[in-house]
């Protein structure tokens, strides 16, 4: 920051103000946190079972794509029916994206990091193709964007005039549900066992393959819902810049939360506040907003190092 000529303290103050200093700032921060909670949760669920889903970005776009197909006029129902249907269909789209990788992994040992990562590019290119072709909005002045979703498909705003939408409530709900699933249910028990020690889980007679498939489907599904939430709540239509890497940032969010479903809410808010605040800071202080990436990376490193140190103490004591 000093290099770009701004006073460091002032820049931080601007960042903080830009992120949390007003109703508008808070709205922006939580609007930004919403997709991050979804993708962070998706990563946390998968990673907890040692399934390295790097493809939340692709799953997000897959969810968004299905919303665009269904929500721009194909279905016309009452919002009370329309929104649940869209949530489910975006989840199914995201989950299907992971079905291939997980089956390849458990049957042939194909590394899911490679398959899920590569699927991101495939989906993105597919979206790009469709936005230039069949899904292109005739009223879009030639921009590669789809038609906006119908009013019934829109997620209602939480406050008049602010961009914060009810997708946030959906995200909080899912975090909470998954937390309960994880600690109280038999499925959650199996998922944790498989994640911590697959060999012992298999030895104890747990259906390891089935648990892995279910985990992958849930993870993909939640990432797919992120796509729905962005299209129906934030942007209104599918564009190529729908997600500035939410899928990848979700991995950071999950790691910062130590894969805890409720921790994801906090870490997503934290990461979002830094990004939103950094944008505000760059506008007023002229510090490049890339500083946000630096800050997030540094906090992730601090987190990883401290986790490592905690482990060490346990081992040596």
């Amino acid at each position, binding site marked *: 920051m000093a290099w770009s000529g701004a006073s460091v303290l002032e820049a931080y103050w601007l960042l903080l103000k830009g992120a949390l200093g007003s109703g508008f700032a808070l709205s922006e921060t939580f609007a930004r946190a919403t997709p991050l909670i979804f993708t962070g949760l998706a990563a946390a669920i998968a990673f907890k079972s040692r399934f390295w889903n790097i493809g939340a970005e692709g799953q997000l776009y897959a969810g968004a794509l299905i919303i665009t197909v269904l929500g721009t006029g194909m279905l016309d129902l009452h919002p009370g029916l329309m929104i649940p249907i869209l949530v489910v269909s975006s989840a199914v789209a995201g989950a299907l994206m992971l079905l291939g990788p997980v089956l390849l992994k458990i049957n042939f040992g194909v590394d899911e990091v490679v398959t899920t990562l590569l699927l991101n590019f495939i989906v993105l290119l597919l979206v790009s193709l469709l936005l230039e072709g069949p899904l292109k909005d005739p009223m879009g002045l030639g921009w590669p964007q789809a038609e906006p979703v119908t009013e019934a498909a829109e997620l209602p705003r939480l406050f008049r005039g602010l961009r914060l939408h009810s997708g946030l409530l959906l995200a909080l709900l899912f975090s909470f549900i998954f937390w309960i699933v994880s600690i109280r249910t*038999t499925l959650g*028990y199996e998922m944790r066992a498989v994640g911590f020690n697959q*060999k012992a889980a298999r030895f104890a007679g747990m259906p390891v393959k089935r648990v892995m498939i279910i985990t992958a489907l849930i993870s993909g599904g939640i990432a797919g819902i992120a796509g729905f939430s962005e299209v129906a709540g934030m942007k209104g239509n599918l564009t190529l810049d729908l997600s500035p890497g939410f899928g990848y940032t979700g991995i950071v969010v999950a790691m910062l939360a130590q894969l805890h479903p409720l921790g994801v809410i906090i870490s997503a808010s934290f990461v979002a506040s830094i990004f939103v605040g950094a944008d505000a800071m760059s506008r007023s202080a002229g510090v490049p907003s890339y500083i946000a990436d630096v800050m997030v990376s540094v906090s992730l490193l601090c987190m990883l190092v401290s986790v490592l140190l905690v482990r060490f103490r346990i081992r040596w004591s």
Partner: protein
Amino acid sequence: MRNVVKRSEIDISEKQAAAEVVLRLRGITKVFGSLVANDDINLELKSGEVLALLGENGAGKTTLMNILFGHYVADSGSIEVFGHPIPQGSPHAAIELGIGMVHQHFTLADNLSVLDNVMLGTEPLWSLSSNRRASRIRLEKLGERFGLQVNPNVRVAELSIGERQRVEILKALYRNARILILDEPTAVLTPQETGTFFETLKKMVSGGLSLIFISHKMQEVLAISDRVVVLRDGRLVAEIKTADASETELAQAMVGRNIELPERKALKAGESVLKLKSVTVKAEDGRAALSSVSLDIRASEIVGIAGVSGNGQTAIADLISGLFEPQSGTMELHGEVVNNFTPRNMLRKKVGRIPEDRHSQGLIGDMTLAENSISECYREPQFSSYGWQNHLNRQRFAENVVSKFDVRGYSANSPVRLLSGGNMQKLILGRVLSGNPQLILANQPGRGLDVGAVAYVHEQLLVARAKGAAILLISEDLEELLQISDRIAVIHRGRLSETFPRESISIAQLGLLMTGQQKSSTTNNQSTEADAS
């Protein structure tokens, strides 16, 4: 190389003064958190002496030797070698001063030749040529001198376990070790190999080396050492001349209380529970094959399987655990052929399984005692209804297991990884026996446990036997097998021998079978081998 010359000079002067103290530890104390691993330990090693370091697991033997070898730094105390104080925390300095260590788990590179393994690290990295011929000659001379012949050109992967141990020792000798620390060296050897190994040790001692021999097997300690030092809970509790020591005395010093060996009642075996009929399994992922294995275990009977590790024990255990199915042959439980080889089906058929590896297979370290205690029955209605886990019942069940099987140290809600090996085994035992199994597979149930814990495990197995369970005990420890088995079979290269009633077979005979020789040819070797073991 300058050091070599120097040390051979020391060599000569040493022989002149035979009883010289070569190693002296003074007031060594090491604390890990709240655990005092070593508490003010004083130790002397004389030239040409075999000092046995005896103690249960966790008594502080390994910590002490790691301090000596420079892996750890002691909190206080000093170490002198040949009268020179050695800087702590530097394995390099320890090697320079002539301390060699042979670890329990070999530190050899499998894909390199014996010569390369020995030379590794002895030459400067930046020298362009390496003097292999001189090294080979030196290695062969060392081998001849101490009876440690190994072909230097063979890859380590092709050597037997006994030969690999020789390479480990040669590695230390090649670095001019004058004091050799042997950490549980016989754990991996057959009784016969142990016999030749002890011959080697005697040659090394007469060649001027001093040895520290770490073990928890009393017979071996009595057979090979001059002096015994017993550690318990980090303290040095006894120091006895071997000639004056008795097994019971040492055992008591080691454990600090009287150990009651579990009583083994004679029982009449019941109906057949497990029947293997010419089971054949192909080798896969490092697992040895089984060829045409047949076995019959009846109720109220313990059948032991002896063998050097890696001869197919894992395959038998995995088969009965339900981890894979045989290529041919059948397995019958209570006269019914098993078609569905899955862990869950085995559990359903009341097969209790105590796995070989507690950490990787038996328990999930990051989950709690309670969660681990139900890992084989978490789907039963008392723990799971409509997909929800019943935490209350789980807690009750776990507390019951913990108190009944004497799992100590942590509450039911602590992660299992904090438990000691013995308590982990008790937890597994509790989990297995709570299911009232009719067949129990106990794969190396006493491995790595201290005397007290082993006695407890044996006692529980005998109780299960008295209740009518059939037990298959797989072990590399012949004493364990002879102690509690009714019949014993030996596995070698995937072939299982017939079973012998334990009264009619000796350790020496088992040892020969373990190396693949037939029982009939044992008579003439028997007496010498029995001495050695």
